[in-house]
């Protein structure tokens, strides 16, 4: 039972971080919240026994895409 409560709390955090990523002002903040969202979904995938998916989401969502987002934002900033 305890584990289920943890999982529900995790889902709530996922929703909140998704909302944050979309609504927050500022590029970098938004991307950081997005990567937090990604990490949280990774944990939820592991909960659901989707280990392969969790691994891919961790590497791509939290790692690679964050780096590409940040670089792209850096390029946009650099033009100003």
């Amino acid at each position, binding site marked *: 039972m305890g584990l289920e409560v943890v999982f529900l709390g995790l*889902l709530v955090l996922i*929703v909140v971080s998704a909302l944050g990523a*979309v609504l927050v002002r500022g590029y970098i903040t938004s991307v950081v919240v997005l990567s937090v969202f990604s990490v949280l979904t990774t944990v*939820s995938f592991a909960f659901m*026994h989707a280990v392969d998916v969790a691994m891919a989401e961790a590497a791509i969502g939290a790692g690679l895409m964050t780096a590409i987002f940040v670089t*792209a934002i850096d390029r946009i900033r650099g*033009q100003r």
Partner: protein
Amino acid sequence: MLQQAMYVAAAIVFGIGLYGVLSRRDMVKICVSLSVMESSLIMILVALAYRPDAAAPIIVDGVATYVDPLPHALALTAIVIGAGVLSVALALTVIVHRAHGTSNIAVVFRRGR
């Protein structure tokens, strides 16, 4: 129970992402929203595969029931495809910003006309 909760969360996340795509004007923010929307689909796929009291789909002696591995494979494929498409979207954003001096999509629409 866990499965239903995951569906609910996925649907809400989908709605949030769609709201972002529809209401944001900044192309970077639209990319973030698209990424959120894609994640919601992965969540649905993972929830779809879930069976209570089943193990992860790696064959071990003495375990009889496993979660459905096929949606996991589909989810993996979708994640990788999503990453590829999203990086193209970001590249376009950089180019548009260089051409127009802004990443506001409304400008792109107006100039395109």
